[in-house]
Protein backbone atom coordinates (compact mmCIF):
# COMPACT_ATOMS: atom_id res chain seq x y z
CA UNK A 1 0.00 0.00 0.00
CA UNK A 2 2.81 2.39 0.95
CA UNK A 3 4.61 1.48 -2.24
CA UNK A 4 1.50 2.36 -4.23
CA UNK A 5 1.24 5.73 -2.60
CA UNK A 6 4.93 6.39 -3.20
CA UNK A 7 4.51 5.47 -6.84
CA UNK A 8 1.50 7.74 -7.15
CA UNK A 9 3.44 10.60 -5.60
CA UNK A 10 6.35 9.94 -7.96
CA UNK A 11 4.06 9.87 -10.96
CA UNK A 12 2.23 13.03 -9.95
CA UNK A 13 5.39 14.97 -9.23
CA UNK A 14 6.89 13.83 -12.51
CA UNK A 15 3.73 14.73 -14.39
CA UNK A 16 3.67 18.13 -12.76
CA UNK A 17 7.31 18.78 -13.64
CA UNK A 18 6.69 17.85 -17.25
CA UNK A 19 3.60 20.03 -17.60
CA UNK A 20 5.43 22.97 -16.06
CA UNK A 21 8.34 22.35 -18.40
CA UNK A 22 5.93 22.42 -21.32
CA UNK A 23 4.51 25.72 -20.06
CA UNK A 24 8.00 27.21 -19.93
CA UNK A 25 8.61 25.94 -23.44
CA UNK A 26 5.45 27.82 -24.37
CA UNK A 27 7.20 30.97 -23.12
CA UNK A 28 9.57 30.57 -26.05
CA UNK A 29 6.55 31.07 -28.30
CA UNK A 30 5.64 34.10 -26.23
CA UNK A 31 9.05 35.65 -26.68
CA UNK A 32 8.93 34.96 -30.41
CA UNK A 33 5.57 36.68 -30.77
CA UNK A 34 6.48 39.59 -28.53
CA UNK A 35 9.69 40.29 -30.38
CA UNK A 36 8.10 39.80 -33.80
CA UNK A 37 5.52 42.38 -32.86
CA UNK A 38 8.02 44.96 -31.69
CA UNK A 39 10.42 44.94 -34.66
CA UNK A 40 9.80 46.34 -38.12
CA UNK A 41 8.16 44.14 -40.74
CA UNK A 42 11.37 43.90 -42.75
CA UNK A 43 13.09 42.19 -39.81
CA UNK A 44 10.31 39.90 -38.65
CA UNK A 45 11.23 36.63 -40.38
CA UNK A 46 14.75 36.79 -39.03
CA UNK A 47 13.73 37.37 -35.43
CA UNK A 48 11.24 34.51 -35.60
CA UNK A 49 13.94 32.23 -36.92
CA UNK A 50 16.34 33.45 -34.22
CA UNK A 51 13.83 32.64 -31.49
CA UNK A 52 12.97 29.17 -32.61
CA UNK A 53 16.53 28.23 -33.51
CA UNK A 54 17.99 29.45 -30.22
CA UNK A 55 15.48 27.23 -28.46
CA UNK A 56 16.72 24.25 -30.44
CA UNK A 57 20.38 25.17 -29.86
CA UNK A 58 19.80 25.60 -26.11
CA UNK A 59 18.12 22.23 -25.79
CA UNK A 60 20.91 20.51 -27.69
CA UNK A 61 23.91 22.18 -26.01
CA UNK A 62 22.42 21.72 -22.55
CA UNK A 63 21.92 18.07 -23.31
CA UNK A 64 25.48 17.71 -24.58
CA UNK A 65 27.26 19.28 -21.63
CA UNK A 66 25.33 22.11 -20.00
CA UNK A 67 23.28 19.98 -17.63
CA UNK A 68 26.35 18.04 -16.56
CA UNK A 69 28.23 21.26 -15.77
CA UNK A 70 25.31 22.70 -13.83
CA UNK A 71 24.18 19.67 -11.81
CA UNK A 72 26.92 17.12 -12.24
CA UNK A 73 28.43 18.11 -8.91
CA UNK A 74 31.92 18.09 -10.34
CA UNK A 75 31.55 14.71 -12.08
CA UNK A 76 31.50 15.72 -15.69
CA UNK A 77 29.78 13.51 -18.23
CA UNK A 78 28.56 14.36 -21.68
CA UNK A 79 25.21 13.62 -23.31
CA UNK A 80 23.38 12.98 -20.03
CA UNK A 81 25.11 9.60 -19.68
CA UNK A 82 25.56 9.53 -15.92
CA UNK A 83 22.83 11.92 -14.89
CA UNK A 84 19.96 9.89 -16.27
CA UNK A 85 20.76 6.56 -14.71
CA UNK A 86 21.96 7.79 -11.35
CA UNK A 87 19.04 10.03 -10.64
CA UNK A 88 19.27 13.71 -9.88
CA UNK A 89 22.30 14.96 -7.98
CA UNK A 90 21.21 16.65 -4.77
CA UNK A 91 17.69 15.21 -4.75
CA UNK A 92 16.64 12.86 -1.95
CA UNK A 93 17.39 9.19 -2.48
CA UNK A 94 15.36 7.41 -3.67
CA UNK A 95 14.41 9.96 -6.34
CA UNK A 96 10.87 11.28 -6.01
CA UNK A 97 10.51 12.13 -9.69
CA UNK A 98 11.91 10.94 -12.99
CA UNK A 99 15.46 12.18 -13.72
CA UNK A 100 14.59 13.02 -17.31
CA UNK A 101 11.80 15.24 -16.05
CA UNK A 102 14.38 17.20 -14.14
CA UNK A 103 16.47 17.63 -17.26
CA UNK A 104 13.40 18.62 -19.27
CA UNK A 105 12.38 21.23 -16.72
CA UNK A 106 15.88 22.68 -16.50
CA UNK A 107 16.55 22.81 -20.22
CA UNK A 108 13.60 25.09 -20.93
CA UNK A 109 15.00 27.56 -18.41
CA UNK A 110 18.25 27.75 -20.34
CA UNK A 111 16.29 28.56 -23.47
CA UNK A 112 14.47 31.32 -21.61
CA UNK A 113 17.73 32.92 -20.50
CA UNK A 114 19.11 32.79 -24.02
CA UNK A 115 15.98 34.19 -25.65
CA UNK A 116 16.31 37.36 -23.59
CA UNK A 117 19.37 38.20 -25.68
CA UNK A 118 17.59 37.90 -29.01
CA UNK A 119 15.29 40.87 -28.45
CA UNK A 120 18.01 43.27 -27.36
CA UNK A 121 20.17 42.66 -30.42
CA UNK A 122 17.28 42.62 -32.89
CA UNK A 123 17.29 44.19 -36.35
CA UNK A 124 21.06 44.50 -36.75
CA UNK A 125 22.87 41.40 -35.56
CA UNK A 126 24.06 38.63 -37.84
CA UNK A 127 21.96 35.54 -37.28
CA UNK A 128 24.85 33.09 -37.27
CA UNK A 129 26.96 35.20 -34.93
CA UNK A 130 24.01 35.16 -32.56
CA UNK A 131 23.68 31.38 -32.80
CA UNK A 132 27.42 30.95 -32.24
CA UNK A 133 27.06 32.95 -29.04
CA UNK A 134 24.02 30.89 -28.10
CA UNK A 135 26.11 27.73 -28.30
CA UNK A 136 28.62 29.09 -25.78
CA UNK A 137 26.01 30.65 -23.51
CA UNK A 138 23.87 27.53 -23.21
CA UNK A 139 26.75 25.07 -23.08
CA UNK A 140 28.97 26.92 -20.64
CA UNK A 141 28.22 30.45 -19.42
CA UNK A 142 24.75 29.82 -18.02
CA UNK A 143 25.51 26.32 -16.67
CA UNK A 144 28.51 27.67 -14.76
CA UNK A 145 26.57 30.33 -12.90
CA UNK A 146 23.73 27.86 -12.54
CA UNK A 147 26.09 25.42 -10.85
CA UNK A 148 27.02 28.08 -8.27
CA UNK A 149 23.40 28.83 -7.50
CA UNK A 150 20.92 26.02 -7.98
CA UNK A 151 23.73 23.51 -8.39
CA UNK A 152 25.08 24.34 -4.95
CA UNK A 153 28.73 24.37 -6.03
CA UNK A 154 31.21 26.86 -4.64
CA UNK A 155 32.33 29.72 -6.87
CA UNK A 156 35.77 28.53 -8.00
CA UNK A 157 36.31 27.32 -4.45
CA UNK A 158 36.02 30.83 -2.98
CA UNK A 159 32.54 30.91 -1.44
CA UNK A 160 29.18 29.17 -1.63
CA UNK A 161 26.21 31.40 -2.36
CA UNK A 162 23.69 29.26 -0.53
CA UNK A 163 25.71 29.59 2.68
CA UNK A 164 25.78 33.38 2.33
CA UNK A 165 22.00 33.61 2.32
CA UNK A 166 21.45 33.88 -1.42
CA UNK A 167 17.98 32.80 -2.49
CA UNK A 168 16.49 32.88 -5.98
CA UNK A 169 13.40 30.70 -6.20
CA UNK A 170 12.76 30.53 -9.92
CA UNK A 171 15.50 32.68 -11.37
CA UNK A 172 15.05 36.47 -11.31
CA UNK A 173 18.82 36.62 -11.10
CA UNK A 174 19.93 33.20 -12.30
CA UNK A 175 17.87 33.28 -15.49
CA UNK A 176 16.56 36.77 -16.16
CA UNK A 177 19.36 39.01 -14.94
CA UNK A 178 21.86 36.57 -16.44
CA UNK A 179 20.20 36.74 -19.85
CA UNK A 180 20.08 40.51 -19.65
CA UNK A 181 23.77 40.66 -18.72
CA UNK A 182 24.67 38.69 -21.83
CA UNK A 183 22.36 40.94 -23.84
CA UNK A 184 23.97 44.09 -22.46
CA UNK A 185 27.43 42.87 -23.40
CA UNK A 186 26.20 42.16 -26.91
CA UNK A 187 24.42 45.47 -27.34
CA UNK A 188 27.44 47.46 -26.17
CA UNK A 189 29.63 45.82 -28.80
CA UNK A 190 26.93 45.90 -31.46
CA UNK A 191 25.86 49.52 -31.40
CA UNK A 192 22.47 51.10 -31.90
CA UNK A 193 20.27 50.68 -34.95
CA UNK A 194 20.94 53.18 -37.72
CA UNK A 195 18.84 56.27 -37.27
CA UNK A 196 17.82 55.50 -33.70
CA UNK A 197 19.84 58.25 -32.04
CA UNK A 198 20.34 61.60 -33.77
CA UNK A 199 23.62 63.48 -33.78
CA UNK A 200 21.92 66.16 -31.71
CA UNK A 201 21.11 63.66 -28.98
CA UNK A 202 17.51 63.11 -30.06
CA UNK A 203 15.93 59.69 -29.73
CA UNK A 204 13.93 58.52 -32.75
CA UNK A 205 11.17 56.00 -32.09
CA UNK A 206 11.21 52.94 -34.33
CA UNK A 207 7.67 51.54 -33.94
CA UNK A 208 7.00 47.82 -33.97
CA UNK A 209 5.06 46.38 -36.87
CA UNK A 210 2.51 44.20 -35.12
CA UNK A 211 0.85 45.21 -31.87
CA UNK A 212 -1.53 42.20 -31.81
CA UNK A 213 1.51 39.90 -31.94
CA UNK A 214 3.25 41.78 -29.15
CA UNK A 215 0.15 41.62 -26.96
CA UNK A 216 -0.52 37.97 -27.65
CA UNK A 217 3.12 37.25 -26.90
CA UNK A 218 2.80 38.93 -23.52
CA UNK A 219 -0.32 36.93 -22.65
CA UNK A 220 1.47 33.75 -23.68
CA UNK A 221 4.47 34.64 -21.51
CA UNK A 222 2.14 35.40 -18.60
CA UNK A 223 0.57 31.98 -18.88
CA UNK A 224 3.88 30.21 -19.40
CA UNK A 225 5.25 31.87 -16.28
CA UNK A 226 2.87 29.79 -14.18
CA UNK A 227 5.04 26.88 -15.20
CA UNK A 228 8.25 28.86 -14.71
CA UNK A 229 7.47 29.79 -11.10
CA UNK A 230 5.02 27.01 -10.32
CA UNK A 231 7.37 24.27 -11.44
CA UNK A 232 10.15 25.69 -9.33
CA UNK A 233 8.32 24.40 -6.25
CA UNK A 234 9.71 21.09 -7.62
CA UNK A 235 6.82 19.01 -6.32
CA UNK A 236 3.07 18.99 -5.91
CA UNK A 237 2.15 15.59 -4.50
CA UNK A 238 1.73 16.52 -0.86
CA UNK A 239 -0.45 18.94 1.01
CA UNK A 240 2.47 21.27 1.71
CA UNK A 241 3.79 21.39 -1.81
CA UNK A 242 0.32 21.65 -3.34
CA UNK A 243 -0.35 24.63 -1.10
CA UNK A 244 2.94 26.16 -2.15
CA UNK A 245 2.14 25.64 -5.82
CA UNK A 246 -1.23 27.35 -5.40
CA UNK A 247 0.34 30.33 -3.65
CA UNK A 248 3.00 30.59 -6.34
CA UNK A 249 0.43 30.57 -9.15
CA UNK A 250 -1.65 33.18 -7.35
CA UNK A 251 1.30 35.47 -6.60
CA UNK A 252 2.77 35.15 -10.07
CA UNK A 253 -0.53 36.25 -11.54
CA UNK A 254 -0.92 39.07 -9.02
CA UNK A 255 2.55 40.46 -9.68
CA UNK A 256 1.96 40.60 -13.42
CA UNK A 257 -1.30 42.43 -12.84
CA UNK A 258 0.37 44.90 -10.49
CA UNK A 259 3.20 45.49 -12.92
CA UNK A 260 0.89 46.16 -15.83
CA UNK A 261 -1.29 48.62 -13.96
CA UNK A 262 1.69 50.49 -12.55
CA UNK A 263 3.42 50.79 -15.92
CA UNK A 264 0.26 51.78 -17.74
CA UNK A 265 -0.66 54.48 -15.23
CA UNK A 266 2.91 55.78 -15.12
CA UNK A 267 3.05 55.95 -18.92
CA UNK A 268 -0.21 57.89 -18.97
CA UNK A 269 1.12 60.30 -16.37
CA UNK A 270 4.52 60.76 -18.02
CA UNK A 271 3.60 60.65 -21.69
CA UNK A 272 -0.06 61.56 -21.68
CA UNK A 273 -1.08 58.37 -23.44
CA UNK A 274 -1.77 54.77 -22.46
CA UNK A 275 1.29 53.25 -24.13
CA UNK A 276 0.51 49.62 -24.94
CA UNK A 277 4.16 48.60 -25.24
CA UNK A 278 4.94 50.05 -21.80
CA UNK A 279 1.96 48.24 -20.33
CA UNK A 280 3.16 44.96 -21.84
CA UNK A 281 6.68 45.52 -20.54
CA UNK A 282 5.15 46.36 -17.17
CA UNK A 283 3.35 43.02 -16.96
CA UNK A 284 6.57 41.20 -17.77
CA UNK A 285 8.47 43.30 -15.26
CA UNK A 286 5.96 42.31 -12.61
CA UNK A 287 6.53 38.67 -13.46
CA UNK A 288 10.32 39.03 -13.29
CA UNK A 289 10.10 40.90 -9.99
CA UNK A 290 8.18 38.10 -8.25
CA UNK A 291 10.21 35.27 -9.77
CA UNK A 292 12.89 35.33 -7.08
CA UNK A 293 10.35 34.63 -4.34
CA UNK A 294 6.73 33.90 -5.30
CA UNK A 295 5.92 31.56 -2.43
CA UNK A 296 6.25 33.67 0.72
CA UNK A 297 4.57 37.02 -0.06
CA UNK A 298 0.87 37.59 0.40
CA UNK A 299 -1.17 38.31 -2.70
CA UNK A 300 -1.19 41.99 -1.88
CA UNK A 301 2.56 42.04 -1.40
CA UNK A 302 3.01 40.23 -4.69
CA UNK A 303 0.85 42.81 -6.45
CA UNK A 304 2.87 45.63 -4.91
CA UNK A 305 6.18 43.97 -5.76
CA UNK A 306 4.96 43.61 -9.32
CA UNK A 307 3.91 47.24 -9.30
CA UNK A 308 7.39 48.27 -8.22
CA UNK A 309 8.76 46.30 -11.15
CA UNK A 310 6.32 48.06 -13.45
CA UNK A 311 7.42 51.49 -12.28
CA UNK A 312 11.10 50.61 -12.42
CA UNK A 313 10.90 49.21 -15.94
CA UNK A 314 9.44 52.41 -17.38
CA UNK A 315 12.29 54.45 -15.93
CA UNK A 316 14.86 51.87 -16.98
CA UNK A 317 13.66 51.92 -20.59
CA UNK A 318 13.87 55.69 -20.76
CA UNK A 319 17.26 55.75 -19.07
CA UNK A 320 18.79 53.16 -21.38
CA UNK A 321 17.69 55.24 -24.37
CA UNK A 322 19.23 58.32 -22.80
CA UNK A 323 22.47 56.33 -22.45
CA UNK A 324 22.18 55.41 -26.13
CA UNK A 325 21.88 51.70 -25.33
CA UNK A 326 19.46 50.58 -28.04
CA UNK A 327 17.19 47.76 -26.88
CA UNK A 328 14.28 47.35 -29.31
CA UNK A 329 12.10 45.31 -26.96
CA UNK A 330 13.24 46.55 -23.54
CA UNK A 331 14.78 43.18 -22.65
CA UNK A 332 17.64 44.59 -20.59
CA UNK A 333 15.23 46.77 -18.63
CA UNK A 334 12.61 44.10 -18.02
CA UNK A 335 14.92 41.20 -17.24
CA UNK A 336 18.12 42.87 -16.04
CA UNK A 337 17.12 45.89 -14.01
CA UNK A 338 13.95 44.31 -12.66
CA UNK A 339 15.75 40.98 -12.26
CA UNK A 340 18.01 42.70 -9.76
CA UNK A 341 14.97 44.23 -8.07
CA UNK A 342 13.45 40.77 -7.83
CA UNK A 343 16.50 39.49 -6.01
CA UNK A 344 16.49 42.41 -3.58
CA UNK A 345 12.79 41.97 -2.74
CA UNK A 346 13.34 38.44 -1.42
CA UNK A 347 14.55 39.29 2.11
CA UNK A 348 11.37 41.32 2.72
CA UNK A 349 9.29 38.16 2.90
CA UNK A 350 11.84 35.38 3.26
CA UNK A 351 13.92 35.22 6.45
CA UNK A 352 16.21 32.59 4.98
CA UNK A 353 17.89 35.16 2.75
CA UNK A 354 19.78 38.34 3.44
CA UNK A 355 20.39 41.53 1.49
CA UNK A 356 24.11 40.93 1.53
CA UNK A 357 23.61 37.40 0.20
CA UNK A 358 21.37 38.69 -2.58
CA UNK A 359 23.86 41.39 -3.53
CA UNK A 360 26.82 39.01 -3.56
CA UNK A 361 24.82 36.58 -5.66
CA UNK A 362 23.72 39.30 -8.06
CA UNK A 363 27.27 40.57 -8.41
CA UNK A 364 28.60 37.05 -8.96
CA UNK A 365 26.08 36.33 -11.68
CA UNK A 366 26.51 39.69 -13.37
CA UNK A 367 30.30 39.76 -13.33
CA UNK A 368 30.56 36.21 -14.63
CA UNK A 369 27.92 36.41 -17.35
CA UNK A 370 28.69 39.95 -18.48
CA UNK A 371 32.44 39.34 -18.45
CA UNK A 372 32.44 36.05 -20.32
CA UNK A 373 29.80 37.32 -22.74
CA UNK A 374 31.88 40.38 -23.52
CA UNK A 375 34.80 38.10 -24.33
CA UNK A 376 32.74 35.80 -26.55
CA UNK A 377 31.00 38.67 -28.36
CA UNK A 378 34.40 40.31 -28.76
CA UNK A 379 35.90 37.21 -30.33
CA UNK A 380 32.90 36.81 -32.64
CA UNK A 381 33.13 40.46 -33.62
CA UNK A 382 36.80 40.09 -34.49
CA UNK A 383 36.50 36.78 -36.29
CA UNK A 384 33.25 37.04 -38.23
CA UNK A 385 31.67 40.38 -37.35
CA UNK A 386 28.44 40.55 -35.40
CA UNK A 387 26.65 43.35 -37.22
CA UNK A 388 25.06 43.19 -40.68
CA UNK A 389 26.20 45.71 -43.28
CA UNK A 390 24.52 49.10 -43.55
CA UNK A 391 22.89 48.09 -46.81
CA UNK A 392 21.50 44.91 -45.24
CA UNK A 393 20.22 46.85 -42.28
CA UNK A 394 18.38 49.26 -44.56
CA UNK A 395 16.86 46.55 -46.69
CA UNK A 396 15.97 44.49 -43.68
CA UNK A 397 17.65 41.34 -42.37
CA UNK A 398 14.73 39.21 -43.57
CA UNK A 399 16.08 39.39 -47.08
CA UNK A 400 19.78 39.18 -46.36
CA UNK A 401 19.67 36.42 -43.72
CA UNK A 402 16.52 34.47 -44.58
CA UNK A 403 15.76 35.30 -48.19
CA UNK A 404 12.08 35.81 -47.50
CA UNK A 405 9.74 38.51 -46.27
CA UNK A 406 7.39 38.06 -43.36
CA UNK A 407 4.58 40.01 -45.03
CA UNK A 408 5.14 39.50 -48.74
CA UNK A 409 3.25 41.58 -51.26
CA UNK A 410 3.34 41.65 -55.03
CA UNK A 411 4.51 38.05 -55.11
CA UNK A 412 1.46 35.93 -56.03
CA UNK A 413 1.21 34.07 -59.33
CA UNK A 414 3.06 36.56 -61.48
CA UNK A 415 6.03 36.86 -59.12
CA UNK A 416 7.18 33.28 -59.57
CA UNK A 417 7.75 30.66 -62.22
CA UNK A 418 9.02 32.90 -65.06
Amino acid at each position, binding site marked *: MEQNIFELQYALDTFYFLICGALVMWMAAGFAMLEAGLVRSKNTTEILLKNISLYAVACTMYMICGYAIMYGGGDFSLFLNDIESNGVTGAEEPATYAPSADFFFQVVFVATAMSIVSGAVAERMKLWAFLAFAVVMTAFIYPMEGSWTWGGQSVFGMYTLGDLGFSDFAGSGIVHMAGASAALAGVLLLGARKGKYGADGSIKPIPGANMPMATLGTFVLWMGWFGFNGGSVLATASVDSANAVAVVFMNTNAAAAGGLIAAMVLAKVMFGKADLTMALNGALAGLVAITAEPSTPTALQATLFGGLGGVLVVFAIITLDKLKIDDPVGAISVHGVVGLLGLLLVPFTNDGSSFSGQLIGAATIFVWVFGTSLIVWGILKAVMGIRVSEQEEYEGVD*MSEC*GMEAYPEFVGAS*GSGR
Partner: protein
Amino acid sequence: MKLITAIVKPFKLDDVREALSEIGVQGITVTEVKGFGRQKGHTELYRGAEYVVDFLPKIKIEVAVASGAVDQTIEAITNAANTGKIGDGKVFVSDLEQVIRIRTGETGEDAI
Protein backbone atom coordinates in the same frame (compact mmCIF):
# COMPACT_ATOMS: atom_id res chain seq x y z
CA MET B 1 1.67 74.91 -61.02
CA LYS B 2 3.39 71.56 -61.18
CA LEU B 3 2.99 68.20 -59.47
CA ILE B 4 6.37 66.75 -58.57
CA THR B 5 6.40 63.00 -58.02
CA ALA B 6 9.57 61.46 -56.60
CA ILE B 7 10.32 57.78 -56.11
CA VAL B 8 13.06 57.39 -53.49
CA LYS B 9 14.57 54.77 -51.23
CA PRO B 10 12.55 54.28 -48.03
CA PHE B 11 15.30 55.27 -45.62
CA LYS B 12 15.72 58.57 -47.45
CA LEU B 13 12.22 59.77 -46.59
CA ASP B 14 13.27 61.75 -43.53
CA ASP B 15 16.13 63.44 -45.36
CA VAL B 16 13.91 64.44 -48.29
CA ARG B 17 11.19 65.64 -45.99
CA GLU B 18 13.63 67.85 -44.09
CA ALA B 19 15.11 69.23 -47.29
CA LEU B 20 11.65 70.15 -48.56
CA SER B 21 10.80 71.84 -45.24
CA GLU B 22 13.93 73.90 -45.54
CA ILE B 23 12.88 75.39 -48.87
CA GLY B 24 9.44 76.19 -47.60
CA VAL B 25 7.36 73.34 -49.00
CA GLN B 26 4.39 72.99 -46.71
CA GLY B 27 2.64 69.79 -47.70
CA ILE B 28 3.51 66.42 -49.16
CA THR B 29 1.78 63.09 -49.69
CA VAL B 30 3.67 59.88 -49.14
CA THR B 31 2.84 56.36 -50.33
CA GLU B 32 4.62 53.07 -49.83
CA VAL B 33 5.14 51.49 -53.22
CA LYS B 34 7.16 48.76 -54.87
CA GLY B 35 8.94 49.06 -58.16
CA PHE B 36 12.05 48.66 -60.22
CA GLY B 37 13.94 50.60 -62.82
CA ARG B 38 17.03 49.38 -64.55
CA GLN B 39 17.98 47.43 -61.44
CA LYS B 40 17.51 43.82 -62.38
CA GLY B 41 15.57 41.74 -59.91
CA HIS B 42 17.30 39.01 -57.96
CA THR B 43 16.13 35.49 -57.21
CA GLU B 44 15.31 34.08 -53.83
CA LEU B 45 14.34 30.63 -52.62
CA TYR B 46 11.13 29.83 -50.80
CA ARG B 47 11.11 26.29 -49.44
CA GLY B 48 13.39 25.19 -52.24
CA ALA B 49 11.49 26.89 -55.06
CA GLU B 50 13.06 29.85 -56.86
CA TYR B 51 11.20 33.07 -57.40
CA VAL B 52 12.22 36.39 -58.82
CA VAL B 53 12.12 39.47 -56.62
CA ASP B 54 11.43 42.17 -59.17
CA PHE B 55 9.84 44.71 -56.96
CA LEU B 56 11.77 46.58 -54.35
CA PRO B 57 10.18 48.72 -51.68
CA LYS B 58 10.28 52.45 -52.44
CA ILE B 59 8.56 55.58 -51.19
CA LYS B 60 6.57 57.83 -53.52
CA ILE B 61 6.46 61.49 -52.55
CA GLU B 62 4.04 63.84 -54.24
CA VAL B 63 4.26 67.59 -53.78
CA ALA B 64 2.40 70.39 -55.53
CA VAL B 65 4.49 73.51 -56.15
CA ALA B 66 4.17 76.86 -57.82
CA SER B 67 5.88 76.91 -61.23
CA GLY B 68 8.60 79.19 -59.97
CA ALA B 69 9.59 76.77 -57.22
CA VAL B 70 10.03 73.71 -59.44
CA ASP B 71 13.80 73.82 -59.90
CA GLN B 72 14.42 74.47 -56.21
CA THR B 73 12.21 71.57 -55.25
CA ILE B 74 13.82 69.17 -57.70
CA GLU B 75 17.26 70.15 -56.42
CA ALA B 76 16.24 69.66 -52.79
CA ILE B 77 14.82 66.23 -53.48
CA THR B 78 17.66 64.93 -55.63
CA ASN B 79 20.35 66.15 -53.24
CA ALA B 80 18.64 64.65 -50.23
CA ALA B 81 17.75 61.33 -51.86
CA ASN B 82 21.02 60.69 -53.64
CA THR B 83 23.27 57.89 -52.40
CA GLY B 84 25.19 57.31 -55.59
CA LYS B 85 24.12 53.68 -55.59
CA ILE B 86 21.77 51.94 -57.98
CA GLY B 87 18.08 52.29 -57.09
CA ASP B 88 18.15 55.93 -55.93
CA GLY B 89 14.93 56.64 -57.83
CA LYS B 90 13.50 59.27 -60.16
CA VAL B 91 11.69 62.61 -60.10
CA PHE B 92 8.75 63.26 -62.44
CA VAL B 93 7.33 66.70 -63.14
CA SER B 94 3.83 67.01 -64.49
CA ASP B 95 1.48 69.90 -65.10
CA LEU B 96 -1.06 70.66 -62.44
CA GLU B 97 -4.26 72.10 -63.90
CA GLN B 98 -5.99 73.17 -60.72
CA VAL B 99 -5.53 73.00 -56.97
CA ILE B 100 -8.33 73.60 -54.42
CA ARG B 101 -8.01 73.81 -50.64
CA ILE B 102 -11.02 71.94 -49.32
CA ARG B 103 -11.42 73.81 -46.03
CA THR B 104 -11.43 77.35 -47.42
CA GLY B 105 -12.18 76.92 -51.10
CA GLU B 106 -9.00 78.78 -52.16
CA THR B 107 -7.77 77.87 -55.63
CA GLY B 108 -4.63 78.10 -57.68
CA GLU B 109 -1.30 79.04 -56.14
CA ASP B 110 -3.11 80.24 -52.97
CA ALA B 111 -4.08 76.68 -52.34
CA ILE B 112 -0.52 75.35 -52.50
